[in-house]
């Protein structure tokens, strides 16, 4: 068999690689290429099938997935438990909102509405905040780090609710960043489609770019250093991984992802206030990563979609379970069920399927790989 040609690939032996190029490919088997392609076609085509209301939700899912992929890099790949994701989301959201805000408005605004300015700025500033936290992260491990990052959320909430010149203050809030590209509004109904269709396509595009970047980072030298630190940091240090450097990189990249996600997250609804960035938001992101499957990019995306769609699903559940009320002042109501579900799903997944949704997929795949034999 020649050592180069792609044509020497044997049918039914997808894992037999005959060239370095095919061994290094991101989607290395024909099945992966076909399924990713089909999924992409479906995702791009969805706006023609679904009503605007659902598309809006899916757009939020895509943005949440960007944040979850970021948290997956630091927690799933590098093993640094962060409960402070809400803080970095907030920094991104406020940076973007302040840059694109109305200069004559009630809150700080620079009036630069081009997305090419405020999105990188949000990522950069949140990334810098991540670097500032890193000195603590490099000295602490495990649960100490989890509690310290949890402290960030509380300090952040205080600052954001007090600094009303920037944030509008608790309960009031401010408009989110404007989606605009060199004078062209990106989220407005036009010839190309309705507002929600365009929003969805845009967010899907961002998700693709960020997810591919993360997947490539994860399989680079940096990503291997991350996994070495996660699996055994002392051993990693012994074989020459610079722990301080790579933990700082992990926090910086993850926070930059969070910053971009935070900047985009509220552009769909157009408005946000300091109470959005609470501990619950951090827990939701942790839940996304864990339910999806820690240490995988696709898992984080699946988890983000699952958690973001959960409220909608529990609303639908109300039609089937008549004793549930849709009124928040009656007991039991759908909001309680939704919150309990977060908790219970985390518990159930961690006990019964620690690899999350991704693990379920792996099991299904392995079953069909060996089919019709069960061993």
């Amino acid at each position: 068999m020649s050592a180069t040609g792609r044509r020497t690939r044997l049918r039914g032996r997808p894992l037999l690689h005959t060239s370095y190029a095919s061994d290094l490919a991101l989607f290395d088997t024909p099945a992966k290429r076909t399924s990713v392609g089909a999924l992409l076609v479906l995702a791009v085509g969805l706006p023609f099938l679904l009503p605007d209301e659902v598309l809006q939700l899916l757009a939020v899912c895509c943005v949440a997935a960007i944040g979850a992929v970021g948290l997956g890099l630091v927690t799933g790949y590098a093993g640094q438990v962060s409960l402070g994701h809400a803080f970095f989301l907030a920094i991104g959201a406020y940076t973007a909102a302040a840059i694109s805000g109305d200069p004559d408005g009630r809150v700080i605004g620079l009036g630069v509405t081009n997305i090419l300015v405020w999105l990188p700025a949000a990522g950069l500033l949140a990334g810098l905040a991540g670097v500032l936290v890193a000195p603590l992260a490099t000295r602490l491990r495990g649960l100490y780090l989890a509690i310290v990052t949890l402290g960030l959320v509380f300090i952040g909430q205080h600052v954001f609710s007090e600094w009303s010149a920037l944030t509008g203050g608790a309960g009031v809030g401010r408009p989110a960043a404007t989606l605009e590209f060199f004078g062209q509004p990106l989220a407005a109904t036009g010839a190309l489609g309705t507002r929600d269709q365009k929003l969805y396509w845009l967010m899907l595009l961002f998700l693709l770019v960020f997810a591919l970047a993360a997947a490539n980072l994860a399989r680079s030298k940096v990503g291997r250093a991350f996994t070495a630190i996660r699996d055994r940091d002392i051993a990693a240090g012994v074989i020459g991984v610079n722990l301080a450097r790579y933990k700082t990189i992990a926090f910086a990249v993850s926070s930059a992802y969070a910053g971009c996600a935070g900047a985009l997250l509220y552009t769909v609804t157009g408005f946000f206030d300091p109470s959005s960035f609470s501990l619950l938001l951090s827990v939701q992101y942790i839940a996304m990563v864990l339910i999806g499957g820690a240490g995988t990019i696709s898992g984080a995306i699946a988890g983000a979609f699952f958690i973001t769609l959960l409220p909608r699903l529990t609303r639908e559940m109300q039609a089937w379970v008549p004793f549930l009320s849709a009124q928040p002042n009656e007991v039991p109501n759908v909001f309680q069920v939704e919150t309990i579900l977060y908790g219970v799903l985390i518990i159930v997944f961690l006990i019964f399927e620690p690899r999350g949704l991704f693990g379920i997929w792996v099991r299904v795949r392995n079953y069909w790989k060996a089919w019709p034999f069960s061993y």
Partner: protein
Amino acid sequence: MTELLESVLRGLGTGSVYALLALGFVIIYKATRVISFAQPAFMLAGAVLVTYLAGPVGFWLAVPVAALLTAGLALGVERVAVRPMVGRPAFVVAIITLGVDVAVRVVVNGFIGLDVRHVGDPWGLRTVAIPGTGVDLQQRHLGALLATTVLIAALFAFFRFTRMGLAMRAAAYDQEAALAQGVSVGAVFALAWGLAGGLAAVAGTFAAAGASVDAGLWLIALTALPVIILGGLDSLPGAVVGGLAVGMIQELAATYQQHAPWLGGNVSVITPYVLMLLVLLVRPYGLFGTREVERV
């Protein structure tokens, strides 16, 4: 001077609530190497139980009964959600307890409902004057401080003088060696969770004394997290000292914050977290915590 003394005494009162909560965290951590994020839910559950029991049986009986019931709840949680996870990474178990906390709190909030609920404490907001100084001290803070002192004395005696206490210390020191010597590590885990649940219930009662029980009470329990980091995750004296210190610093910040208006109102809410960050920059394993040493 009076102002300073009064806020220090107030701080000792709130600090003793933190100390009780922090003791619960540390006991669970020492026994199982896990931080239980479910403590806030237990604290809220305990306080709500007291509000229901105080009417029929009176405050003095309601508190121990609620503590026992909460301990039972904690035992159940340990059995169902934590025991299957023995041997898994500590972080995973900690996240599970986060899930438990969210789920339990929703149920407990359902029992709070829309009414204003009081724990029925005999003190309310009454104060007692300390003779000769002109310092007024709220009775509820005095009560919290006394209850904490008694409980801590009982706990330390339990760990020092009883068989089970010895077993807990052995399991905390080296689980495998303790198992080999016939200590039932499972019983130690269960007891640790039970103790933490009971302590959280008492803490919840005193946190709510003189005020009403509402869904926001659980946030007080989170202040115990900077406390245990400050004292060191695995130090019982650290939890007590840290709790009292954080309580005092918080009250001092509340008293004197008008001198630094740029910090914003309610700065006392975040002083524990800021303090935690500052201490960790100097001592990563807290004031009394054991430094992690790994042999390669």
